[in-house]
């Protein structure tokens, strides 16, 4: 497939940015420099970037607690993301959300949900709104392999099909739901078979190959709009990160991890650079740019002011008597 040069650069740059960002997060997590839970997405870069490369800037997506890659690929400000993870006032959610809830409505992120399978119904609503208002924004919900057992996913999928809502259900099948292996928890041969319950079109792809992810997503978007129907996409990859930083990952056998490394999405992307006539100098340049940006973002975040304690009282409602939020 042809890719415009700018998009190509964007893809590589984002892949590296996400990887470096997460590696940095892992490091500072070890050093306990940031508060709270951290869920990194090493191994998911191609899915984040591949899908987002097929979307328009203002399309709607939802993410989960494992959202850094989605946020970065959705062009959220890296500095603001980092500042949020550090709990600072200039964070993308003003420090109220933290790592699990990185989200920027103005960039089309409807939310990053800590509740498994909370996203699909919400994105269904955004897509419904587009349909009713004859809008043109695409709607994509990201979720993990573990989410397909949850009722909220099923209810959203069933309604989307019944109501002829064009949207994409994008499942990242990264081999694990917490400490539970996907090949145990599936009832069907392929994860995407779940969509048969709804007679929903589905495709599967290599989640380690950013270009394949992109192509499948582009085609699915077109088909979904043309046929006025939701489509389910399953991308297979491997969760190199633990469930969260600090997870001992004892349940992930070493041989499995080593095997998966052979198809590391970043490695694959670098191998494919040739096909797209990108020199290793260019690639190294992207890497450097990405690394610089990441370093800069962390430096920024570290020096940002903390929120005031009382800032916590704002943003609960658009409109509510202040004295009923906190008695003084």
């Amino acid at each position: 497939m042809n890719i415009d040069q700018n998009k190509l650069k964007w893809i590589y740059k984002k892949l590296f940015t996400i990887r470096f960002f997460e590696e940095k997060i892992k490091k500072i997590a070890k050093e306990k420099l940031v508060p709270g839970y951290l869920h990194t997405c090493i191994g998911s870069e191609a899915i984040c970037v591949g899908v987002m490369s097929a979307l328009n800037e203002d399309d709607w997506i939802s993410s989960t607690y494992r959202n850094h890659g989605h946020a970065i690929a959705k062009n959220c400000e890296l500095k603001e993301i980092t500042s949020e993870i550090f709990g600072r006032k200039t964070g993308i959610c003003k420090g109220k959300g933290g790592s699990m809830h990185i989200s920027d409505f103005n960039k089309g992120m409807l939310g990053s949900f800590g509740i498994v399978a909370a996203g699909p119904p919400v994105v269904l609503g955004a897509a419904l709104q587009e349909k009713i208002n004859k809008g043109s924004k695409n709607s994509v919900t990201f979720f993990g392999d573990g989410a397909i057992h949850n009722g909220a996913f099923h209810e959203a999928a069933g309604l989307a099909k019944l109501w002829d809502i064009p949207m994409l259900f994008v499942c990242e099948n990264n081999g694990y739901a917490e400490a539970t292996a996907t090949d145990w928890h599936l009832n069907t041969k392929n994860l995407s078979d779940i969509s048969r319950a709804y007679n929903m079109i589905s495709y599967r792809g290599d989640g380690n190959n950013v270009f394949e992810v992109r192509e499948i997503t582009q085609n699915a978007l077109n088909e979904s709009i043309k046929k006025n129907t939701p489509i389910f996409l399953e991308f297979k990859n491997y969760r190199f990160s633990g469930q969260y930083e600090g997870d001992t990952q004892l349940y992930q056998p070493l041989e499995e991890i080593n095997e998966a490394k052979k198809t590391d999405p970043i490695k694959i992307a670098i191998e494919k650079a040739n096909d797209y006539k990108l020199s290793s100098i260019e690639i190294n340049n992207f890497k450097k740019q990405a690394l610089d940006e990441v370093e800069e973002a962390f430096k920024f975040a570290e020096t940002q002011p903390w929120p005031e304690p009382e800032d916590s009282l704002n943003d609960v409602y658009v409109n509510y008597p202040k004295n009923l939020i906190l008695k003084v």
Partner: protein
Amino acid sequence: MTILTVKEAINQALVESFTNDKNVILMGEDIAGGKGREQYQGTQDAWGGPFGVTQGLLTKFGPERVRDTTIAEAGFFGAAVGAAMTGLRPIVELMYVDFAGVCFDQLMNQAAKMRYMFGGKQNVPMVVRTVVGAGFRAGSEHSQTLYSLYTHIPGLKVVAPYDAIDAKGLLLSSIIDNDPVIFMEHKRLYMSKCEVPENLKPIPLGKGRIRKKGKDITIVAIQRMNLFAEEAANILVDEGVECEIIDPRTYSPLDEALLYESVKKTGKVIIIDESNPKCSLASEISSLISENCFSDLKAPILKLTAPHTPVPFSPPMEDFYIPSTKKIIKSIKTILKY
């Protein structure tokens, strides 16, 4: 002025809101009815929900905006959240509040918290219409009120009208409000009537209503309990007792000032709530008054609620479950002795 039932008043508020703003939509199970049988005459709009409250909307506003759903509350409540954030003003129907548990996450963790935890960039202007209340011989799973479940959650507003004026005026407000609102309709009040001005304006959320002025005791009456409070007050007039009846009407935000003002005057309070007692709205109001009107209180604050049991089916038991006029009078007399 026309005389309207609560049911008609709600339908009017919906029609007006649909007319005023094309972004208002309605989703729920059989809110129209007859889905799938459109080719037959007379099948469309055959229901309007189990109480017929939304009948006619489909015919007036069409199936894009009046959407019958499957029995998938988590799905369509979540969808209401997403639709609200992106430009619509969805109204979703939880057929009975007793079904709260099948979509509580969508309200508690999404509708209520998204604005906050994502940094205040987005609004979630949606309304949940739901039916509450005992006295219908509907058994344990179709008779609860659950006011306190929603009132506890920051990010939600909770509204519960008693009469047709309040039903219409508060629903108009709820729909134009930019926060998620739980709008609770009492099944035993749908057919109660009162005069409603033609051009009723939205009634602001967070303002209670003094339904009867009095100086001897403050009766805080929760939704249908206003009926019995009024009966009790009328009977007590003969004994020279002047009760002040306050209907908070919205439970979040609550018009605390109005309550305190009344208690300052009367020094005596009874709160009547047909909910279960523990961690109830009655508990909340009692605790607020006791904290804020300590020196004004001349007697203990009484809570008259249902017992700590599910709602029983059989009439004698259900009647015992619901606070009655007789019990109200008895309790008031107890306090008046102080």
